């Protein structure tokens, strides 16, 4: 598992951690039943507060990415591939909305935008 925290990011640290773990689950780097470090160990390693790592794990648990087994630890949950794809769609959709809004600000038309995508996609 790899976690890199940026202090200049606009994202709070707990979101950065949750995001990076989620990305690694979606990409298949972290697979089902992999044990995650304890919140206290992760906090010590990253030199951040326990409450920050706790919050990150809580968000991941709420969204079904990880499970905490009392007394045993925290593990990557069984992932439904269709669900993950659905979530990835949503993430891309959100990014696209931002791009479209930005394009409108600078008067870039829909066809120009599609042309751009076609070019880059190739």
């Amino acid at each position: 598992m790899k976690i890199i925290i940026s202090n200049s990011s606009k994202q709070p640290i707990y979101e950065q951690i949750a995001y990076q773990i989620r990305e690694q689950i979606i990409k298949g780097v972290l697979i089902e039943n992999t044990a995650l470090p304890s919140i206290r160990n992760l906090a010590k390693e990253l030199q951040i507060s326990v409450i920050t790592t706790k919050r990150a794990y809580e968000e991941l648990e709420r969204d079904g990415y990880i499970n905490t087994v009392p007394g045993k630890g925290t593990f990557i949950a069984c992932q439904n591939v269709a669900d993950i794809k659905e979530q990835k769609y949503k993430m891309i959709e959100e990014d696209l909305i931002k791009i479209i809004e930005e394009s409108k600000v600078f008067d870039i038309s829909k066809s120009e935008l599609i042309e751009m995508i076609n070019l880059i996609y190739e």
Partner: protein
Amino acid sequence: MEKILEIKNLSKNYDNFKLEDVNFNLEKGYIMGFIGPNGAGKTTTIKLIMNLIKRNSGEIKVFGLDNLHDEKKIKNRIGFVYDECNYYDNLSLKDNAKMIADFYDKWSWSEFDKYIEKFELDKNQKIKELSKGMKTKFAIATALSHDAELLIMDEPTSGLDPIFRQEIINILQEYIEDGNRSIIFSTHIISDIEKMADYITFINKGKIVFSEEKTKIEDEYRIVKGGLDILDSGIQNNLIEIKKNKFGFSGLTLNSSALHEKYGEAIVIDRPSIEDIMLYMAGER
């Protein structure tokens, strides 16, 4: 969760300063940063917890025990770092430590030796020969050497260089890793506790401004900036403290989403650091 420290309606009156109705709690396994400007009441609060001064009213419980009734029991389980040096100047570190060791049931010489070595101190040196930083290191070594469940540290990092401050922070994080110990750490060097503190208690002019989980503070507080043309009462009512210059205003808010909805691109919303929040909140002097 188990509370290690509970302070209820605590008040202390001096002629020229009042600590008023202080309330906050600290849970087992966490670090609390106790912040505020000089003279805000940090040391007074800590002295009241340690029963070094008499309170006028209120209640303090440590490990669930009353801090007056069970003072001895409680102090046995507290590691205390005071911001002034109160050791015997003419005695060596070892002889000072011997006197301190007598007060604690769980004193461990091997732990003490471990920290003395880690901090590169010489046990045979006299206290009066130490620099300020070395005295602080000695104080921290003694506080960590009796398996204390609560560390109370009053400005432990003031007067220390950044490298040693970081070293202390690492040691403290290690100290609470097992989840059974807590730390309350007063400082006005916010960057020291910004990363490691789980809770931030902010005191100003003898009153608690807030005592919250750090992630909550990060979620809720925002700085809003914009041009003077839009600074109407609608905005002003949502700002905790407003700073103005010739070209615009900035202010601290808890309602950034409502403001964003109403003013959109006309305002800029930033995340404040804990220091920013302190500067805004302690603004009017």
